[in-house]
């Protein structure tokens, strides 16, 4: 009898407890082609959650679902988070290609969605409920074009991109626009050539680039492995130009697979432990090192910031209603581990770009290029 009473009490307690929780949805590619990015991003969210597991005096519960690196599944998972779990807000996925369909659904259902690292403009475009804590590809493309022209004295460039990946298509396009504008020469991008996600052989495209003989080669690959293989095959074909890339390059796989081929390549990214982006960086890096025995890359750092920005907004809104959170997010001015975060009229963060290179098989910090 007593045990029954205890059981009923427990049920009531857990019920009350559950109703009091604030549910936050998390979607990441934990399996599939983008699993590396998803798993690293999740580390950042879990670290942030360990630091702040409650808000408004109520416990936070994370609902983590795997979108399997699949565009359709990415939309399904967001639908499930909203309809089945009734989450207050969603921390979005790695990969713009997966982020675009998910953000669309969250916006349609009027649920706040924060993308940690998606840089494609379409992720937030015309979606009042969608925000991001990183910079966007028009800026990143411009930064790399500027860097190539100013630091590497490039007058011509070639671009090789993945036509099946939204991120890659976007970044390639903005790089070309900026490069042509900055050089003032409409023919300065001498080769603009596509491959398809899943390809492993890029020799046809690279041979065409070799013939055009540009000063630099821009490789905005959707997956780090593609960038590494392109670099390898470029060197095997005798291309000696400096290689440039975007933030997808910022993973150890680039060096593991690319080896000596990526030596001396440059890419833009959003975070570096040595870049002094914020007074909070040092503490975060130390905690991360202690936990995972390696330096944090940009993915855990931005996912950490995405969580913190959301908690900051909920705290200021004093509510877990999506509409209130959204209004609070619009006035965000938060210093995260990846720098100061404010949103522009498109709800994209205004951030600085970090340029890195590969030297003696290690990532090296080069410079910071200020956000506009």
């Amino acid at each position: 009898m007593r045990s029954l009473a205890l059981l009923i009490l427990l049920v009531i307690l857990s019920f009350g407890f559950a109703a009091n929780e604030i549910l936050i949805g998390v979607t990441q590619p934990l399996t599939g082609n983008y699993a590396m990015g998803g798993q690293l991003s999740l580390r950042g969210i879990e670290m942030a959650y360990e630091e702040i597991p409650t808000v408004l005096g109520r416990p936070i519960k994370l609902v983590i679902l795997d979108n399997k690196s699949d565009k359709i599944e990415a939309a399904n998972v967001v639908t499930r988070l909203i309809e089945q779990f009734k989450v207050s807000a969603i921390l979005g996925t790695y990969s713009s290609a997966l982020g675009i369909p998910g953000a669309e659904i969250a916006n349609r259902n009027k649920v706040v969605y924060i993308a940690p690292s998606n840089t494609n403009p379409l992720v937030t475009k015309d979606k009042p409920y969608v925000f991001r804590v990183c910079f966007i590809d028009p800026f990143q493309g411009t930064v790399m074009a500027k860097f190539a022209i100013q630091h590497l004295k490039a007058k011509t460039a070639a671009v090789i991109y993945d036509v099946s990946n939204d991120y890659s298509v976007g970044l390639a396009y903005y790089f070309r626009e900026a490069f042509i504008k900055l050089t003032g020469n409409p023919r300065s991008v001498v080769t603009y050539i596509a491959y398809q996600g899943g390809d492993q052989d890029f020799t046809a495209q690279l041979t065409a680039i070799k013939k055009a003989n540009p000063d630099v080669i821009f490789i905005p690959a959707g997956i780090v492995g593609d960038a590494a293989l392109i670099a390898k095959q470029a060197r095997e074909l005798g291309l000696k130009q400096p290689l440039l890339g975007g933030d997808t390059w910022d993973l150890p796989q680039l060096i593991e697979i690319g080896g000596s081929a990526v030596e001396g390549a440059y890419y833009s990214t959003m975070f570096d432990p040595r870049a002094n982006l914020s007074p909070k960086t040092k503490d975060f890096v130390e905690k991360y090192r202690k936990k995972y025995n390696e330096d944090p890359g940009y993915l855990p750092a931005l996912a950490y910031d995405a969580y913190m920005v959301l908690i900051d907004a909920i705290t200021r809104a004093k509510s877990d209603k999506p509409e209130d959170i959204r209004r609070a997010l619009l006035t965000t001015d938060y210093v995260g581990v990846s720098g100061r975060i404010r949103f522009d009229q498109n709800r994209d963060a205004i951030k600085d770009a970090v340029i890195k290179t590969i030297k003696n098989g290690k990532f090296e910090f080069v410079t910071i290029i200020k956000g506009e």
Partner: protein
Amino acid sequence: MGLSLFLQHLVNAISLGFVFGLVAVGYALVYGVVKLVNFAHGDVFMMSAYFMFYTSLIFGAPWLSAVLLGIVLTALLGVGIEKVAYKPLRKYPRINSLVSSIGMSFLLQNFAVVVFGGIQRSFPVPEPMKKTLIIGDVRVQAVSIYTIIFSIATVIVLGLILQKTKIGLAMRILSRDFDTARLMGINVNRTISFTFALGSALAAVSAVFWALRYPQIFPFMGQYPGSRAFIAAVVGGIGSLKGALLGGFLLGVLTVLLPAMFPEYSGYREALIFVLLVIVLIFKPNGLFGQEAGEKA
């Protein structure tokens, strides 16, 4: 297009063509004998890459012995898959085995994700394979030359096995009719097991050459070569080993030459390739080397 540029494209095309061809040969062998469209072939290919990766990396086995061990393990895996997924369905319509092979493909992929992790890994490449030969302005990968030699040798050896050995004779009879073969005193189960062992060993061999050329391994790496092998085998005449090698070669050439000749339309490459393949099949419905199914309706 200058001569050296054209030659470079040609070298690229031939080297990719033979890689595709080698994958397609193993695929065509299983189809030719068992008449099973084995969608799991690409994933057996992927598993063999991981077998070699782990035997050489984790246990520190020397490269060649890791490869040999990988081939043996993959052959065993192939036989096991046949026993579990295809043998129980043998008396049912062929579509059942086809669906089972698709299921097996997903099973292997997801198994690999869970066990090996979804992260891309670098495949160890021994020094002699890393060399690049430079002839004038044209550059040739050492591994491409090995691939070409090995693909042709493989087709010859397989041809000899099929034509000159007892088990080869049994395989050829089996490819005509299971029941008649059984009446002739052929041990059907053993012959099919042997076919799968051989087909999977070929998947493993092609995986070695693939991974040497593109040293990035991940659980979904079998999808692309698997689908290429299927297309190559269909175009070459499904079941014909020579046809598979030629089909793969043709596919490789198209994959390289289309973006080479029309760089601004490189994004449309897959679509163009499929249009060309449909045209081939309109005029040669049995593929380039396919036999007319005349004697048996």
